[in-house]
């Protein structure tokens, strides 16, 4: 928090006034998020200021600006499945696979997205969740559209996809900050936060920051053993089970 206040002060004093060419000076509160045994989600703060282009004659930039922050998690192949009623029971019959689909996607913006810019511009830059499901798919256009929309809905219900149209707050004309709570279900891996600065419906500056969500210590050890030494891991599970069972019998023997 202290670091944040210090940065805020530095940014406020260094931020000077005007013009169209602008650059973005930004940061994120954590560069790694550590998953420990008590991990229950984590709060991240994004902040930054809009400054004149480096080396330009301008002394200050002129607003108003809009800021959109897109946080993208590692990609996975995901399928959306549909149950249908057959012979009296419900079973999965149709499915569409989405290759390299983001496991986490959140958009924070300072205003309603459609007021900030044109929908085509937003889609081109993958700012809207729907853009990720519109990538051409072998399943065909209509099916991809339906299943993609449902997949995004399911992801949103789990808190993995979301849009917060008041997530970015301006503290002055050029300084903003935004907070995001990463849920405990957010998958580990590399994350990217893309920040876009809009003015009059156009992107005038952009910057991306990376941060990582990592299992550490014991959690990391367990997850790695399970994938790298599955046989030993399995044997360890069995030994643990046999020991616990034996110990239980000894402790409670009457």
């Amino acid at each position: 928090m202290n670091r944040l206040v210090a940065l805020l002060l530095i940014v406020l004093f260094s931020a000077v006034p005007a013009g169209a060419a602008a650059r973005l000076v930004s940061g994120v509160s954590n560069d790694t998020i550590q998953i420990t045994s008590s991990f229950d989600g984590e709060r991240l703060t994004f902040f930054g200021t809009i400054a004149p282009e480096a080396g330009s004659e301008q002394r200050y930039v002129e607003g108003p600006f809009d800021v959109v922050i897109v946080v993208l998690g590692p990609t996975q192949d995901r399928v959306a499945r549909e149950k249908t009623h057959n012979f009296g029971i419900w079973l999965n019959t149709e499915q569409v696979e989405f290759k390299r689909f983001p496991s986490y996607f959140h958009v924070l913006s300072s205003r309603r997205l459609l007021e900030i810019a044109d929908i085509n511009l937003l889609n081109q830059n993958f700012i809207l969740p729907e853009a990720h499901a519109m990538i051409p798919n072998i399943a065909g256009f209509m099916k991809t559209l339906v299943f993609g929309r449902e997949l995004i809905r399911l992801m949103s219900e789990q808190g993995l996809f979301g849009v917060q149209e008041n997530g970015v707050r301006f503290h002055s004309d050029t300084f903003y900050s935004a907070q995001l709570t990463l849920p405990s279900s957010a998958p580990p891996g590399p994350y990217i936060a893309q920040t876009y600065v809009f003015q009059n419906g156009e992107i005038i500056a952009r910057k991306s920051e990376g941060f990582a969500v990592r299992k550490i210590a014991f959690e990391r050890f367990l997850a790695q053993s399970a994938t790298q030494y599955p046989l030993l891991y399995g044997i360890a599970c069995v030994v643990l089970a046999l020991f616990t069972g034996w110990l239980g019998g000894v402790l409670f023997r009457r």
Partner: protein
Amino acid sequence: MQIYLPIAELSVNLFFLVGIGGAVGFLSGLFGVGGGFLLTPLLIFSGVPTSVAVSSVTGQVVAASTSGALSHYRRGGIDLHLAMYLILSGILGAFGGVATFSVLRANGQLDLVIAVGFVVLLGFVGILMLQEAVRALLKSRQGVVVRERLPNQHSWIHGLPWRVRFKKSRLYISVLPVLAIGLFIGFVGSLLGIGGGFVMVPALVYLLRVPGNVVIGTSLAQVVAMMAATTIMHAVQSQSVDILLAFCLMVGGTAGAQFGAAAGQHLRGEQLRGLLALLVLAVAIRFGLSLVLTPDDVFSMAVTSAVR
């Protein structure tokens, strides 16, 4: 207190896990069954991915059955010769079960097959047990002494070839039905994440006429060995065994089982069997409803590849 499960990749309340482990352990101690058939559904209904639930419960079943198997072994209540045949065929069946498990998971039909498996298996066993228990209860109320069928009564099973003498069980029977029971339990147990004790015990008693003093011990020994092998297979094949989840369940389970066993002494055998039958049927009906009723959401999603 939340605890993060590294394989399931979600955080769950620690007391909830130990609590359901304890509650199921209590019931398993009460009825003398492994409890996998209750624990797997409970985990699935509380949001743990089906594949992680099935393979982690496999580990918990090993722990739950070990203390029982050891105490039966000390009392000489295990026919090791018979258990060996059951274990070898059981492990063979488990290979099939684990392979089927992976194929089903890839096709998105795992949940369906597990639900259907639970409905058919538990429904069938539950109805049989309920019938038997009700009959016994009615007869005991009328004052009739219930006589179990004598072990020397023969059926078609005793006419099969390749007979082997099992000294401890005082049996001279064909190995074919023994191997068939082992294969079936191995396959079903590894696919559904249950020990299969509640299928094994009736099969040994009614099909093979194994005497009562070695039935439970032999079945427990088979469950321990087969589920241990299955745990390793799941760990290698689907890498979905969550050791932390399994451990929380084990701790609750082994403690709960002791209280359950103590409580069980206050109830009569046929009452216990009747209650167990109702419990088994309840689980079967719960799964049956999930198949038949219109789901809240006809759409579902799953990850098919690791994070990149």
